[in-house]
């Protein structure tokens, strides 16, 4: 159980926030931050652990969002069932895109470009298809009951997204200590060497993509329940692809807490600067860019990596470690 202790501590601390803070604006901020953290954790499974940099997480986010919205609006399906269906549909899209790209042997920037292209195609299709509400989008009927996955209090929404994030943290932690995770990291480090050791790189990458897609799709489903609206530029827009990849890179790609740490820092900075300067359009993207440059320059393994290094160094100073001991997280 010991490896899960940090997750328990962090989630408990975040769960305690509503006990002290009741302002809706703060809770709203935290809900959106955790939503991004969840989408980012999806990217982190494939990109951080697997080294496959997807620029098209929007394809999964949007598929999750549209699936649950369409089921509720057009077919009157229960929101919770819609939620599960959205995750499944996102995973299915992950399986399709993964099969096509990995079967074709696409790596690095080619993979990134093709995933971006898939998301853009979906966005354009969704913007003209009647079932997605075309250019108008879909409004989910207001129905503030738990069985409709809608809640009067923002606190409940906050706890729900926190629970989803907690699940994603546990998934990453389990991944790190599993054979699948060891093989996924091996593929990231050197695909040929991994193959020589019996790793079926295609299957491993595909599995990671499906898992990644499911997690990001869950964020899309939650988005619909929270805002009760979705259109093609929200669902399949590049904004979510960018946020889903920037937050874990800034926070620490391939670490359990990378996406969460990155989302918290980036969103706090963004909101803080908005408060100071007023709502200048595009400013948040400039902040992301600046933070990304700083992180890549000064902490290439992200905030979590920098924290781990710092802790190691402090521990070293307090007690001289035996030669050859290297900590890593």
């Amino acid at each position, binding site marked *: 159980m010991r490896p899960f202790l940090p997750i328990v501590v962090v989630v408990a601390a975040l769960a305690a926030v509503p006990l002290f803070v009741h302002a809706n604006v703060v809770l709203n901020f935290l809900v959106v931050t955790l939503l991004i953290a969840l989408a980012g954790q999806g990217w982190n499974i494939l990109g951080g652990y697997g080294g496959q940099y997807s620029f098209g997480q929007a394809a999964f986010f949007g598929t999750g969002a549209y699936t649950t919205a369409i089921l509720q609006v057009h077919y009157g399906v229960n929101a919770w069932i819609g939620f599960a269906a959205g995750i499944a549909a996102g995973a299915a899209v992950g399986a399709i895109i993964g099969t096509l790209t990995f079967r074709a042997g696409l790596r690095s920037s080619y993979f990134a470009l093709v995933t971006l292209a898939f998301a853009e195609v979906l966005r354009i299709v969704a913007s003209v298809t009647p079932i997605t509400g075309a250019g108008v989008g879909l409004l989910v009927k207001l129905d503030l009951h738990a069985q409709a996955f809608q809640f009067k209090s923002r606190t409940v929404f906050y706890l729900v997204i926190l629970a989803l994030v907690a699940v994603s943290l546990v998934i990453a932690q389990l991944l790190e*200590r*599993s*054979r699948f995770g*060891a*093989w996924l*990291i*091996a593929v990231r*480090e*050197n695909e*040929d*060497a*991994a*193959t*020589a*050791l*019996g*790793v*079926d*790189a295609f299957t491993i990458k595909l599995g990671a993509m499906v898992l990644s897609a499911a997690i990001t799709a869950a964020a899309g489903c939650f988005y619909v329940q929270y805002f009760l609206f979705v259109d093609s530029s929200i669902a399949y827009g590049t904004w979510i692809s960018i946020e889903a990849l920037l937050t874990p890179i800034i926070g620490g790609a391939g670490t359990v807490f990378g996406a969460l740490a990155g989302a918290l820092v980036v969103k706090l900075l963004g909101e803080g600067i908005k408060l100071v300067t007023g709502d200048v359009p595009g400013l948040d993207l400039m902040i992301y860019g600046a933070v990304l440059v700083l992180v890549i320059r000064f902490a290439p393994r992200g905030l979590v990596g920098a924290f781990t290094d710092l802790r190691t160094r402090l521990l070293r100073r307090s007690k001289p470690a035996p030669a*050859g*001991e*290297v900590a*890593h997280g």
Partner: protein
Amino acid sequence: MAEPLLSVDSVSRRFGGLLAVNAASLSADTGRITALIGPNGAGKTTLFSLISGFLKPSAGTVRYAGHDVTREPPHRRARRGIARTFQIVQPFAGLSVRENILVGAHLRHRARAEALALAERVGRDVGLGDLLERPAHALTVAGRKRLELARALATEPQLLLLDEVLAGLNPSEIRDIIPVLRALSARGIGVLMIEHVMQAVMSLAEYVFVLAEGRIIGQGSPAQVVANPIVVEAYLGHGAAARVGGGHVH
């Protein structure tokens, strides 16, 4: 006679206009060390890639443990028991030595604890016991060669393909690693090694195949091979055999 563990039957591999491997046949068997030697550019590493599955032959068959594996991808051949090292070492640079070996150990052990125990044991066997926590990129050349060997061994192979594991090592490092290789074949593992260090080939290998310009031009015991005038000429040029009088090349 029983079929050998590995039998390569007249495989060829063409890269555009270049016939890198030309109807080469060889075999390797359990519990013995077989060497594949030849001048630079003879096609040795290409032949290894054909055996391990990283390249598909243009013609010919590769049989392993009674199965035709000619069309199988490399990861499936690894599962059957073929492990290879790379001439240009390919460590998982961002991982520790232990984590590197663990990747191989997981092939036949899903449980992390079992795989970790195996990784540690293999690490000690090849002399990396004190370096297990070291990041792989911090190892010396000799250390990286050992790591290649350890990772391959952690897959618990029956056939080990070693692509110049001794190249780049100094004489004392070579002296250290030779008993490790000998112990492997004593344990029943079949070893097929590409090697330029003739001193090692002479002392380790029971049987030697000589590849030149993609073709097997000679085979036999190490002593027979170095006495073979065709082999001497392949290394030293036309007429060399006469000049050295068929004596020792190295």
